[in-house]
């Protein structure tokens, strides 16, 4: 019983990480039709900026309020990076899908190379508050606090995104744009501003995933974003392009499946099962769990 509770909560921690990466990816694809392979870079920038800030930024540090400042700096850096990528590289290519893919793949590779050249290819220990290294006893299971932190953060981000989509003017534009972007422009709305906004939201969530994921794993490495991005893409496809709620359900399914199968089967079998789940969803429900609707 303890094992099941532990696996469920660590699986939900993994799901939280996937959701933080996938939510922005899904909105960007749903609204702007951009398959952003550079999304993992936003995660990497967030993680490294947090790591750098904890050691160098005045007022920031590895513990207490200083750590909050460091994470906020990391999130700000990831958001800025996402906005710059959209404005400088993606915006001129909105009608050119192949070039978009080439640019984002190239940027992703260049970004990893730059991180490696600056801070080395090896994983580095991540400064983190002492309490995140400890565990909390829940119904007899010893659950890592880092995982609980991820679950709490993802829940807050999910609530914030849904509230934004439901209650704000830009949220309305994004929901409508995911359904029919052309018709949004035909109502006199400059939808490009919404594109920049979804990139910013996606960049912020991915950067948060980078910072808190590094807290969970205890290390930061240049390849971190790329490996998480593969599962984030799977989550987006299973959840349905453009659906934040769909991404949340899919992230939970993928996280739990991976965790349980890896524990009760062979290590690595969980990843294969996730790919099998993706294949089943694509065969039975190609539009994903929630289809192409930005649900609020």
């Amino acid at each position, binding site marked *: 019983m303890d094992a099941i509770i532990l696996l469920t909560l660590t699986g939900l921690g993994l799901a939280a990480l996937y959701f933080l990466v996938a939510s922005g990816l899904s909105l960007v694809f749903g609204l702007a039709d951009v398959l952003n392979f550079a999304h993992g870079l936003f995660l990497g920038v967030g993680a490294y900026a947090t790591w750098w800030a904890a050691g160098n930024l005045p007022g920031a540090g590895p513990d207490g309020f200083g750590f909050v400042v460091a994470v906020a700096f990391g999130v700000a850096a990831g958001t800025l990076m996402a906005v710059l990528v959209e404005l400088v590289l993606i915006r001129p290519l909105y009608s050119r899908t192949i070039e978009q893919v080439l640019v984002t793949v190239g940027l992703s590779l260049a970004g990893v190379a730059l991180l490696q050249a600056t801070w080395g290819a090896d994983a580095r220990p991540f400064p983190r508050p002492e309490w995140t290294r400890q565990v909390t006893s829940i119904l007899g299971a010893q659950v890592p606090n880092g995982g609980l932190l991820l679950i709490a953060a993802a829940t807050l981000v999910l609530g914030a995104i849904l509230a934004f989509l439901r209650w704000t003017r830009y949220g*309305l534009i994004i*929901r409508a744009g995911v*359904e029919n972007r052309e018709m949004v*422009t035909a*109502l006199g*709305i400059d939808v490009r501003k919404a594109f920049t906004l979804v990139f910013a939201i996606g960049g912020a969530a991915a950067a948060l995933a980078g910072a808190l994921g590094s807290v969970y794993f205890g290390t930061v490495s240049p390849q971190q974003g790329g490996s998480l991005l593969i599962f984030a893409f799977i989550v987006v496809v299973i959840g349905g392009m453009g659906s934040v709620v769909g991404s949340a359900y899919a992230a939970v399914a993928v996280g739990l499946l991976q965790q349980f199968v890896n524990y009760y089967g062979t290590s690595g079998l969980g990843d294969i099962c996730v790919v099998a789940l993706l294949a089943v969803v694509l065969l039975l429900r190609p539009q994903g769990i929630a289809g192409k609707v930005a649900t609020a």
Partner: protein
Amino acid sequence: MTVEPVLTVADLSVRIAGLHILQGVSFTVAPTGVTVLLGRNGVGKTTTLRAVVGLTPRNGEAHGTVRMGGQTLLAQPTHRLVRGGLGYVPEDRCVFAGLTVAENLRLAERRGSTPAYDRVFALFPELDRRARQRAGSLSGGQQQMLAIGRVLLNDNRLLLVDEPTKGLAPKVVTEVAEVLERVAESVPVLLVEQNLAVVRRLARDAVVLAAGKVAWTGDAQELLRETELTRSLLGVGSAEVHH
């Protein structure tokens, strides 16, 4: 005295995926009443409206001159044209199915101008009653009213309306025609319409397209009176012309 047209289309050519859909189309739209764009299926009527409002698809290109007042329209982004007073009601309504009626209308609101909800609800009281209903669950007629209402929330210099009665029940077709008739009293309309009874009721001027070119322009009622001409241009029988 010569009346200045509200819209001038000159030598408009549109190529999509390598196909020449429009080839040097030229016509004008009068500053009052309804000008109807007619033609058989696939002659480029919708392509013309979409080119005017800047919605030529990514794999296409539009050349020529389109002017509204002193403003050149081609090459301007759609949202700017619409904000400049070009209202567009697309074929198949294109309401946002996942949003409520109120949200569909709210989307059309613009900063700096007061949305004319009174005007919209006077024409379509049903929209007020169904404000919280999802647009995807409305009937075809109600969706059409929402599509028109959304555009009427703001003041327009010209309305482009694409096949508003397509797929609607005869009773609803009459209702939509009545609404357009009232709308056309205050704003000129360029209408694409296949239903000749609606054309007879609404249109003053007609532009007939054939194979991507203008085949005939003139008085719409005169066109409908000339059965042979109508048959040769539109491919319809006398029964359809006279009812």
